């Protein structure tokens, strides 16, 4: 079930020239949301742009008594819609529709004894905070592999640390953490993990997710990816958001990622058929 809320913007924290976190007053959505689900945000009340934009639910906002009062999104300003969201002001009202899609937890039932390793590239961090909270509540060991172009791309890692995750940060320019791709420490740690069973959860640029999927396959770690195709409606109405995945019959089919995703068992994804 999805609800549409004309939500007041509670906060807009600019993290840099292109990242910000927008908090929305939307208790209905906050109460329903499960880790990894997303919302469709309408960037304006007018027609420019016309369509909503999909965003992972980043935080569940709570009041002093820990009651859910809303959700936030981690927004990267890349175009017309996200630039409006970058410039939005507290007090503005925007329509947000959700929660939508399946949860990380719908792909693999929590496998007993598995460690949860999150692999995030840039704004791909967004769907992990809710998963980390869930994992912490489960008292399951977790790690965050988090890569960006430079230090200024790595936000909020400390929130994960506070929840008990161990961190593996990388930047392409070496300004923070290890220099290089996030798959470097991931591969090293996977190889060094001994017999411990690990589940990988990945979100970020498609090439990164594809590389993580390959590592997971070769190093025997079940892998879930959260894909980010263009989405027209988020509700299953338009068939714009398809990804080619192999079905129960082992044949590849286009499935709507707003209904059957955005999270998928990486083994099912036909990477070469993705739009970008």
């Amino acid at each position, binding site marked *: 079930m999805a609800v549409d809320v004309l939500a007041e913007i509670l906060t807009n924290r600019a993290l840099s020239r292109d990242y910000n976190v927008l908090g929305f007053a939307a208790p209905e959505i906050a109460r329903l949301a499960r880790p990894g689900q997303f919302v469709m945000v309408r960037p304006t009340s007018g027609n*420019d742009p016309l369509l909503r934009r999909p965003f992972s639910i980043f935080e569940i906002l709570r009041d002093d008594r820990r009651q859910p009062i809303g959700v936030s999104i981690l927004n990267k300003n890349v175009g017309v819609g996200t630039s409006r969201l970058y410039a939005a002001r507290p007090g503005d009202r925007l329509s947000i529709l959700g929660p939508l899609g399946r949860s990380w937890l719908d792909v693999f039932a929590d496998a007993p004894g598995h460690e949860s390793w999150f692999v995030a590239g840039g704004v791909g961090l967004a769907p992990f905070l809710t998963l980390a909270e869930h994992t912490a509540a489960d008292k399951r060991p977790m790690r965050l592999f988090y890569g960006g172009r430079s230090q200024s791309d790595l936000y909020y890692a400390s929130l994960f640390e506070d929840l008990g995750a161990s961190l593996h940060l990388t930047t392409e320019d070496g300004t923070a953490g290890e220099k290089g791709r996030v798959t470097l420490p991931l591969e090293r740690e996977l190889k060094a993990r001994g017999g411990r069973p690990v589940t990988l959860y990945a979100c970020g640029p498609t090439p990164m997710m594809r590389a993580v999927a390959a590592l997971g396959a070769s190093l025997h770690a079940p892998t879930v990816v959260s894909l980010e195709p263009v989405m027209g409606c988020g*509700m299953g109405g338009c068939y714009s958001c398809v990804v080619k995945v192999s079905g129960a019959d082992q044949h590849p089919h286009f499935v709507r990622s707003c209904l059957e995703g955005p999270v998928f068992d990486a083994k099912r994804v036909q990477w070469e058929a993705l739009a970008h």
Partner: protein
Amino acid sequence: MARDLSVQIGSLTLKNPIIAASGCFGYGLEYAGSLDVSALGGVASKGLFLKEREGHPPPRIVETPSGMLNAIGLQGIGVHRYVAEKLPELRRLGVTNIVNICGTTLDEYCEVARVLSDHEGVAALELNISCPNIKEGGIQFGCSLTGTYDVVSAVRKVTTLPIIPKLTPNVTDVASFARASEEGGADAVSLVNTFLAMAIDVETRTPKLSNMLGGLSGPAIRPIAVRMVYECHQAVKLPIIGMGGIQSATDVIEFLIAGASAVQVGTANFVDPFIWTKLTDGLADYMDRHGIGRVSEITGSLRKNT
């Protein structure tokens, strides 16, 4: 005031004139978890061929000023899975199903129509002879007057369900296609399908859609669609189901005044899936303010400027 939102499309009665447009509302069930789909005037299903279809590779949509292009390529489950997997639940929910049917041949249209006629729960058939973005999507019929006549009269012979050819706007004289539909035995016509269009990524110099061409829908096209509905209303006696860019009750009323008996809403449902009650409430409010008892009093009520 006594005010009645129901409308009559030939032998078909709709509880209100506002229908979800084909290809914009899945098969209807997708929305059933979030809203009461039976409260809509009707649901036009995603276009159905006899067999399943994969559709085009992504990217399948691109946004344009006040509109969008789509080239879904009629991905769909085929009519047999529709009657087996969707129709029973849709019936149980009390949805008014207007099934949008496609074909690459006259025989396929007829066969799809036959299968649907054999099942309870289908209110009407919308003949998609106007999908602009697949070569075999019926557009070969929809862009020719004899083709339109042929497909309508062929389907007429195999079903007693109301049949509603859906017209393409990509023609010089849309009214002549409404006339051909009338002569072929249609119960109504619906229009407009999308406008053939394209968008190019200038950095890569490639089309933004994998299919290169797509169909333009949304508010951008509304003034053209209203004109076409008006032209058809002048030309035929058939009820008209109007659409193209509707996003408010005012837009619904504009189409009714131009000559529509009912309307469909496509793209705006993507923006606001809870739009339906806003539209019916707005229409009801308008009728109250203007002392209008029946929706049909609005249909074709355009006054000329003096």
